[in-house]
């Protein structure tokens, strides 16, 4: 098991622009994240998934600089080092129906170039952390949607990542599993940087230490969940204080 060795900024994004053809998905995003659980909130189409894909080293930036764990992502040699320390759960993750949970998680342990002797224990540990230990030898096609998502989370955390990127991780989880999942996030967030993209405001309110709100390809709010609550004191749209804050942050950005 690798102890976290990171000192300094885990995620450092400056003036990030991503364009798909003529469409601008991200338009000058700045983001600095350290250890802790960070929420990434935003309406559909705001650029959350694009930002996650750039941080996961899957999509490339059009301009601006992205550095993870003090490595510049534009340097090929650094890319490999960063990827070993990365965990990523995309919104739609493919799985292999014939694989068991254990084989699926093991597959990604190998792809993340973990030390061979450390793999079996790390795989079991990850499966246990997401509460799938009793289903470890079941094939993925036999699992429910919530269990699949937990298997996906297990592959993301199998290498004890320093940067963990989760895109809509609570989709398909029932309320009780959500509570357990937030607890898991808090544990991981103690010495890693966890970034959770979600449209569920309450996930952020409960589990996150910091929030970034994205709208129309820009980061329009950065602060703690309490700051976001404070931002919504003047509005009445939304069912909870933090939802009001979120609505207010988005509106303020659109007016500008």
């Amino acid at each position, binding site marked *: *098991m690798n102890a976290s060795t990171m000192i300094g900024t885990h995620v450092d994004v400056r003036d990030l622009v991503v364009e*798909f053809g003529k*469409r601008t*998905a991200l338009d000058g995003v700045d983001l600095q994240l350290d250890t802790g659980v960070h929420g990434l909130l935003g309406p*559909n*189409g705001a*650029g*959350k*998934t*694009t930002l996650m*894909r750039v941080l*996961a*080293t*899957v*999509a*490339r930036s059009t301009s601006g600089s992205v550095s993870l764990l003090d490595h510049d992502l534009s340097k*090929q040699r650094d*890319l*490999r080092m960063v*990827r*070993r320390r*990365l965990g*990523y*759960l*995309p*919104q*739609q*993750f*493919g*799985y*292999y129906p*014939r*694989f*068991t949970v*254990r*084989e699926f998680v*093991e*597959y*990604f342990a*190998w*792809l*993340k*170039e973990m*030390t*061979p*002797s*450390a*793999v*079996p*224990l790390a795989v*079991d540990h990850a499966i246990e952390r997401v509460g799938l*230990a*009793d289903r*470890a*030898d079941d094939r993925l096609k036999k699992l429910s949607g919530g269990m699949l998502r937990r298997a996906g989370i297990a*592959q*993301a955390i199998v290498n004890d990542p320093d940067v963990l990127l989760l895109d*809509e991780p609570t989709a398909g989880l029932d309320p009780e599993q959500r509570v357990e999942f937030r607890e898991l996030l808090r544990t991981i967030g103690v010495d890693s940087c966890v970034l959770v993209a979600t*449209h569920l405001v309450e996930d952020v309110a409960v589990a996150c230490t910091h929030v970034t709100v994205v709208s129309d390809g820009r980061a329009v709010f950065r602060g703690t969940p309490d700051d976001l609550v404070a931002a919504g004191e003047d509005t009445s749209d939304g069912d909870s204080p933090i939802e009001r804050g979120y609505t207010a942050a988005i509106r303020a950005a659109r007016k500008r």
Partner: protein
Amino acid sequence: MSWHVTGEALSAYASGRIADSDAWSVEMHLTACERCRAALAAEAATDVDLSTAIRESWPGIAANLSSQGRVRRGSRSRELIVLIAAGPAARWAWFTAAVVVLALAAGLGAVTPFGRGQEIPLLGVVAPLLPILGVAASYGSGLDDAHEVIASTPGGGIRLLLLRSASVLAVTLPVGLIAGAVTGYGSPIPWLAASLALILTTLALASVTGVGRAAAIVGAAWVTGLAMSAAGDVTQAAPALLDPDAVPVWLLVSVAAVAVVALRRQAFNYTSLPAHPRLEN
């Protein structure tokens, strides 16, 4: 493991004389170190009371443990098996399809005359195409369900691509050889050389266009080339591309393609799939 628990600390731990903070670090170490676990077991065996207590309480502990399941030792060979098994080409459906196609090609080629009195050896035409399709299916074509996560891993680039290409060749080439031997196709060397050249050219081109498109281009070029050479020269027994004289050319093409792959290996660091704007939320 850079350090091991000292004999002193182990005996203190076994007899319960150790300080709490030291006990924690010993336990932490023991979970990861087989050598120290063995040393502790030897240490505990010398203490009669302790070993009796362990023997008597073990059945009760074991009854409450969940079954361990099928845990496999982490080794390089296990890594190869898992990485290859995850590829679509390793699936039975694909393997069966490859066998059927080659068997049909060999069978048809043995009985059907093509063109103006000339026979195009169908097996020789199809056999080099299959590995390309297999590689396209195994890597970065969107057929691999987990490509998005794979693209974010250090081992998902050229290493996985080469591994899966090799596994595809390992399946299709023997099947082709057997089909050729059964139907009396003649020397397999021309089409083997062509196979090698085509798959390596596909990989080289993939560094620019992505695997799926590269496979389509090379496959189309192969079929077109064969059709043209068959139409152009009626006197020859086989199309020029499948002639033994073409073998050195294919080998040269292979070497050139390997050089391109080696030079452009960094291009495989990124997924060749387009960014999915439809995933954008």
